[in-house]
């Protein structure tokens, strides 16, 4: 019994080690600040600890983690708006150096992501940043593939507008 408990604990620790960066980064993309992202990631792994490691494969585990994270982020987004740590979205002079320019674009994109509605943000984070298939994103968000495609398309349009400095 003790051995089983220890094995489960080892397995849990292993999953945390493998997935902590991914979950924390996704939480940050969805919530917009690191403090909330840390809390959300902790809650995700705590729920995994309670749930147990009964998954048929790695993909099922990943989908479960994303689904819990998405639900947590939607709940948090209802009570607090993100972007506390986001840089201001203002039209700036482009940086001279290409690397600096790229970094600046990433910062602005991160800030723009925080302006999206929660479901669109989750759809584009999972589909375009995490690289999941539309089918997987639909399963995680509990919607159809058509809805996900539509959300991603709308999110891309909004992001392009925000990146240009439009409102």
């Amino acid at each position, binding site marked *: 019994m003790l051995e089983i408990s220890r094995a489960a604990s080892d397995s849990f620790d292993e999953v*945390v080690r493998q997935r902590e960066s991914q979950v924390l980064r996704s939480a940050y993309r969805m919530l917009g600040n690191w403090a909330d992202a840390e*809390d959300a*990631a902790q809650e995700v*792994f*705590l729920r995994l600890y309670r749930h147990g490691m009964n998954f048929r494969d790695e993909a099922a585990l990943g989908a479960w983690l994303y689904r819990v994270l998405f639900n947590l982020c939607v709940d948090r987004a209802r009570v607090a708006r993100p972007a506390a740590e986001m840089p201001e979205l203002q039209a700036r002079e482009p940086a001279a150096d290409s690397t600096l320019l*790229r970094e600046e674009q*990433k910062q602005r*994109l991160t800030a723009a992501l925080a302006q999206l509605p929660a479901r669109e943000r989750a759809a584009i984070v999972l589909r375009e940043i995490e*690289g999941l298939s539309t089918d997987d994103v639909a399963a995680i968000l509990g919607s159809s593939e058509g809805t996900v495609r539509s959300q991603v398309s709308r999110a891309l349009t909004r992001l392009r507008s925000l990146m240009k400095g439009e409102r």
Partner: protein
Amino acid sequence: MTEEELRSLLRELRDEPVPADSLVRMRQGLAQRVEARRMKWWWIPALLAPVCLALIAVWFAVPALTPVPTPAPLAVLNPTIPPTEAAPVMRSITRPKAAPRNNMTIRIETPDPEVVILLVADEPKGTGTL
């Protein structure tokens, strides 16, 4: 910025490193919460283990101490025998005791010593005399 450039920029975000201090804070917070959860329930197995052992011990000890059931309680508990049928049995047992109650015998001696007349009569019910 075209849509393809935007998608490319989004993909680059995937590989961005997580700040080390944020990762450390998340690990520490998670470790504390998992440990708190483990400590919260430690007393349940500690309490249940001796209780289970005691129950198992009682389970095996009780059959040896149980007396062999006697037939009488089983007969009483048998639902096929109605309790009213026991009464006539009791009456049939007590009736023979009343049989020798008051038979009257009259002995008449004749002149012949070899001949004796015996008159035997049952006492009529409801009367005390012949």
